[in-house]
Each structure stands twice: as C-alpha cells, then as structure tokens.
C-alpha cells in the first residue's frame, strides 16, 4: 500500500488505473476531467510499455480502446457528459464484442453543451446501456477519494472477469476535490490471467475473430441471450450499496456519488433535530441494488430520492420499492449543487408529514 497522499479525484483515478495494470489510455480533452488525461500522459511518458494517445475525437478514442482491448491490454478512456454521448457507439460495440474496457464519465450539467458544473444527469445513459442494442454496462459510483481508488481497481478486474465495458460514474466536483488516499499495491501486469481470446497474431494457433455482426438472426439472438445470462450473473455477484443509520430510520434518503455525501450531511443535521433519517447509497448503479432497499422499504414511512438531476435514479428506486412506501424526489439539475442544509429542510418537511400521518 502507498503512503497516505492528498490528491484530486481525477489524479486518484489515473494513479489507481496505472496500479491496476492499465497500460493504454485514449481520450479527448473536455472539462471537467482534463486532469485525468494530463496525468496519464505524464505518467505513461515514463513507462515504455504504456500507450497514451490524444485522439482527434471521442469517437476515435473509444475505437482506439476497442483496438487496444482486442490485444488483451487493460485500457481506459475518460470524458465528461457530451463526450460520453459520442463514445456510445464504441461502448455498444465493446459490449457486443465482449471486450473489457474502463470508461470514466465525470458528469457535467446538460443537456447539450450544458456547463462544466457537477451534475448527475447521465444516469439513464449510463445504466440503460447508452448506445443501441440490448446491453448493459457495469456502472460504479464512487463517493469518496478512497473509493475512487478502490473502485478503479474493481472496474478493471470486473471488466476482465466478465469481458464487458465498465463505467466509473463521477462528477466534476468529485474530479476536482482532494482527499487523502491510500493506494493498493500495483498489480503485476504479467501475472494477470491470460486472455485466450486476444488478437496477437495467429502464431501456433488458429486465427481469431472479434466481431459484433451476426447476420443470421438466431446467431444474433444467441449472442443476446448469452449477454443476458452474463448480466444475470453480474447482478448476482457484484451489486453493492452503503446502508447508513437505517436500522431505526423512518425516512431513508437514497442518493449516490457526490449527492450521497450531501445527503449524509443532511441526515446528520436532521438526526440532531430528532428526525429518524438514514441513507441508502447505491455503489453499483447497474446492477442497481434493489434487494436491500426493497427489504427495508416495507418498514419505512417515506423514501426521498435526491439527485443532481431532474430525477432519473428515482425510477429504479420506485421499481425496487414497488409501492411498499411513498417515494418522493428532490433534485437540482443543471449543475446546481445543493447544500446539506437544503436537503435537511426537505427531510424535515417530510418528517413533519410522517409525524402528522402517524398521529
């Protein structure tokens, strides 16, 4: 393990990626995540076996990711909302070709060019596949600097294990913020499990094809069902969440990433004012951690979903809760960051209603 260091989120992600065996990075500049490609370019300049290319576009960079992933390398690209929209073509292909890759989205305000302030309005895009076709991308949502480091390692491992693209979904604020981090030891790239599907030249073996075209519908259907079965296994294996002060809670706030930290601050405030509030923080957004939330929902008076968007994850929460308790939403889209005080106010007003109802 490394010594404790104070680093901004984008740099934490870059360092963690390198320590996870990432040896290829392809990207295109966009605020607020430019410090990540900058970190990769300077770090890789000192590593003869590593490749950094600043591509001419997001499209080119995600397709370079496809090429590098084909060879068996651990590869990453990063961007922010508008750029990630452009990458969706390649992400769909990665899913279909069953190629591992790590894609980082440091979300900013949208739609369109939006702004560069932190936001969470790409939840639908991230968790519903994002591009064309029937597929999903594993989506990890860190909330702390240390978690950025840990989830980056996890992202590369999951991508390889399931041969699937993995997205790390952060936001502009998370990328800029510095927190103390302890890095895990670097992996030995040569000791990683061999990829018996990689394209390296057909030396002493039959030639290999990596493809996504299956003109024969039954063949394409077969691929789709294979992906579905894989997604079922992933859902079973990796779904994860933080459950905080929920044991005696009457109101639970559901939030992820930066919003979850603001929500946690709000929970502290209202607890000190006598409202029994807790926090449920999904750490995997796809697969969404439905099970624990569903289980606790029958004992709750209310669930409040808080997002830095106009309401996206709230749909997954409602699907999980299936009407067992009321679910309401509070959000600020467009890059506006709520304060814990503001969220505490919302919780308090719900708390008052809960008291009234039970009286």
């Amino acid at each position, binding site marked *: 393990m490394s010594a404790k260091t*104070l680093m901004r989120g984008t740099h934490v992600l870059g360092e963690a990626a390198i320590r996870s065996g990432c040896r290829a990075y392809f990207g295109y500049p966009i605020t607020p995540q430019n410090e990540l490609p900058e970190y990769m370019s300077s770090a890789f300049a000192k590593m003869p076996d590593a490749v950094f290319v600043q591509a001419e576009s997001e499209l080119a960079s995600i397709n370079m990711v496809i090429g590098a992933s084909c060879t068996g390398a651990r590869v990453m690209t990063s961007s922010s909302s508008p750029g990630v929209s452009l990458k969706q073509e390649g992400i769909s292909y990665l899913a279909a070709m069953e190629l591992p890759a790590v894609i980082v989205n440091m979300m900013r305000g949208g739609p369109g060019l939006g702004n560069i302030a932190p936001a969470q309005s790409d939840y639908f895009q991230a968790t519903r596949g994002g591009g064309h076709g029937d597929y999903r991308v594993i989506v990890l949502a860190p909330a702390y600097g240390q978690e950025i480091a840990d989830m980056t390692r996890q992202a590369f491992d999951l991508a390889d294990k399931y041969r699937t693209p993995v997205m790390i979904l952060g936001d502009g*604020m998370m990328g800029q*913020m*510095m927190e103390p981090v302890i890095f895990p030891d670097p992996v030995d790239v040569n000791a990683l499990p061999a990829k018996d599907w990689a394209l390296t030249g057909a030396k002493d073996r039959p030639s290999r094809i990596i493809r996504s075209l299956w003109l024969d519908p039954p063949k394409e259907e077969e691929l789709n069902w294979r992906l579905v079965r894989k997604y079922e296994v992933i859902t079973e294996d990796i779904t994860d969440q933080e459950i905080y002060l929920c044991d005696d809670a009457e109101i639970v706030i559901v939030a992820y990433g930066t919003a979850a930290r*603001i929500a*946690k601050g709000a929970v502290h405030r209202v607890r000190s004012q006598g409202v029994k509030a807790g926090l449920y923080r999904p750490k995997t957004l796809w697969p969404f951690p439905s099970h624990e939330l569903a289980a606790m929902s029958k004992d709750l008076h209310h669930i409040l979903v808080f997002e830095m968007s106009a309401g996206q994850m709230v749909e997954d929460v409602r699907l999980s809760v299936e009407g067992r308790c009321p679910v309401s939403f509070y959000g600020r889209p467009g890059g506006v960051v709520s304060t814990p005080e503001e969220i505490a106010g919302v919780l308090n007003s719900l708390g008052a209603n809960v008291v009234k109802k039970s009286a």
Partner: protein
Amino acid sequence: MSLKIIFSGFGGQGVLMMGYVLAFAGMNEDKHVTFLPSYGAEVRGGTANCTVVVSDEEIASPIASAPEFVVAMNYPSMIKYQNMVKSGGVMFLNSDLISEEPSRGDINLFRAPVNTLAHDMGADRSLNMVMLGIVAAKTGMVSREALLLAIEKVLQGKKKSLIEMNQKALEAGMNFATENN
C-alpha cells in the same frame, strides 16, 4: 470536531494554496480532510475560492453551506461569502484591501493587513501564508508544526529559501494573531 472554512480572493493571492496547505497539514495529523477548489470557467474570471473541511470523523459533505470560518482576501469575496458564515463564526478579512464591514452583526471579525505584513518581511507573495498563520492561531484547526511540515512537503523540490520564507510568513501570521487578540 468538524470545522469548515472557505478561502476566497482573486487569482494570484494564493487562495488555493492556503486551502491545500491546511488540508495537507490536517491529513498528516491523521484527521479527515477534504479540499474542494473552484474550477473551470469560474477560475477564468479571476476569482478563486476553495472549501476545506478538517474533521475527527468521516466527512459527509465536502460542501460548506454554513462554514465556521471564511477568509476573504478582497472586497468582492467578503460580499460574496458574508451571508454564508455560520452565526457565531469568524470572518477573516484582509484589511489592506477591505475597509468595509460585513452587513451582519452575529459573526466575529478578525481584520489583518496581510499585504502589509508580508511586504514588511520582504515576502509580498507570501501574504497567503501570513493569513493561514492567523487562521491557524485563531481556529486551532491544525497545529503549527503540522503546517510548517506541510509547507515543506507541498513546496518540495522548490528552492529552500522559498520554503523558509513561507514558513516565516506563517509564523508571522500566528504571532500577529496572538498579539492582536
């Protein structure tokens, strides 16, 4: 204990550096810290601010809706942040650039001519460390030793004289705060 502080001013006053050194020192005292800088277009306008939280427990929100402390290095920053300070909190004002007073009476003020103090010791650019010394002495967020070490670590690789100058500026600030209680 969990204390939040916003440092604000214009570009070139070393506002982000103040926050970074404070957070670094807090980390080395094994405290939980967050350092949240302003970024992007906001920075291009010439203003700078950052929020630092130093806490004995895990930090929930790195955003300070009502910080205990605010440092305003220039007048626009005082106007921008005066209403955010927690009631009973402290606003540190650079009195060389701010002659006005915030328009509320429920906060404490500490005024210090940090440009002058830095200039008098031949270290014009170290005004940020003078202010940080004042903040440290008044708030007790982190220890003097931790700050001195943080300056050394943060400026690692720079000229020794620069490190010493910044450390001296920090101590000058601490002394000023003690003498002007």
